[in-house]
């Protein structure tokens, strides 16, 4: 396929470009996820521990989940202007709701959406390639996409690994048995995603 060779050419010919932008995309995503975690963890722990305010937290999460990212960026443009802070806030809004249920889904979607930084006026991420097809061609778009997909899967794997490390041994065995049951009964991500609205 011609397109595949173009994508390979892009990756071979501009390594410093896509490596830098991919690095920035990771930093931006990690920062947004970090802020989102810092905001939602205390809320989650408090509501879970005090058994109070969970309705408010879940409704708030549902409202935040519904916000279209480009629309949030647009409204933020009028409030904070263009640049890093804009895309950062938009990604935090995107990251918070799924964190209350599953960090992996959240991580993957934030990484895939971070390219919109170019729309918010910061060309630091791979969005610079994706939103500028005239400059880098479709091969560049495919190459940048491949990089983002690899980062997303690696990050999801990392989060899953961290979760396993952070789980105490006894709980891990119990959870393994449960996961096996769940994976027999359905995909593991499914009940997590369903959780906010069903509860």
């Amino acid at each position, binding site marked *: 396929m011609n397109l595949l060779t173009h994508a390979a050419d892009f990756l071979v010919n501009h390594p410093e470009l896509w490596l830098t932008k991919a690095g920035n995309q990771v930093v931006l995503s990690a920062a947004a996820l970090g802020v989102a975690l810092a905001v939602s963890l205390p809320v989650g722990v408090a509501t879970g521990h005090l058994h109070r305010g969970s309705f408010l937290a879940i409704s708030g999460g549902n409202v935040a989940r519904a916000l279209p990212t480009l629309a949030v960026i647009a409204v933020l*443009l009028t409030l904070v202007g263009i640049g890093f802070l804009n895309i950062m806030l938009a990604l935090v809004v995107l990251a918070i709701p799924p964190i209350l249920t599953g960090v992996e889904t959240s991580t993957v979607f934030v990484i895939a959406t971070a390219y919109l930084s170019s729309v918010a006026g910061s060309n630091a991420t791979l969005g610079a390639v994706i939103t500028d097809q005239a400059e880098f061609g479709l091969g560049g778009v495919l190459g940048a996409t491949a990089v983002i997909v690899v980062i997303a899967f690696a990050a999801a794997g990392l989060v899953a690994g961290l979760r396993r490390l952070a789980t105490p041994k006894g709980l891990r065995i119990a959870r393994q048995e449960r996961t096996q049951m769940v994976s027999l009964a359905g995909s593991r991500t499914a009940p997590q995603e369903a959780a906010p609205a069903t509860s």
Partner: protein
Amino acid sequence: MTALAARVGASGAPVIPIIHARSRCVTNPSSLFCPSWVADNWTGVLEPKLLQHIEMTVTAVAIGFVLAFAAALAAQRVSWFDRLFTGFSTLLYTIPSLALFELLVPLTGLTLLTIEIGLVGYTLLALFANILAGLRETPPEVVGAARGMGMTETQILLRVRMPVAVPTIMAGLRIATVITISLATIAAYITPDGLGQPILDGISTGFNTELIAAGGLAILLALFADALLVGLQRLLTPWRRARVD
């Protein structure tokens, strides 16, 4: 020019979207929000874009639902199909939306078809996972009892599994709908349809009123659609309400 365009817009005549009226607001473009522009451009710009946005979303979610439902039924019978389809839809989920649209353009052109294929792709993960989880929620002994009562497999699906699955399926439908409304704004990079068009126009011109009006409309649409689906779920599962009360 702009004054003329504003008058045309106000009289309700069609206005060419990209160079539509900025009316009095253009004299002070740094002002945060100018209600008169919204009034002048409601019928010419905002309303048609909103309707296009709704149409795009409903089409994508409906097609995605049919595909995901068929896939979930298949996954119930063939065990490896679950992993295959989950892997496929997760892969789609990691692809940046604009990149997916751009990569589809050589195949399907700068058309709404391109947009719909992409949007349907992003609905699949949430819909498939939740439909399958919902269908599997019915305990095996309940299915056994239904079979013992002489129900056929189709009757068990429609009368036992489906009602039990409604809340989980609706949760997936809500996620898929708000994701689609969000990603449909990106579609404006490919075709000048939906609320993304005035948003991108506002970004390129730095016109705050248009950004707030179009962005705000997209946000309100997502919240309204989500609330509508919650209401629908309540209507479909009256027994759950009775139990909570």
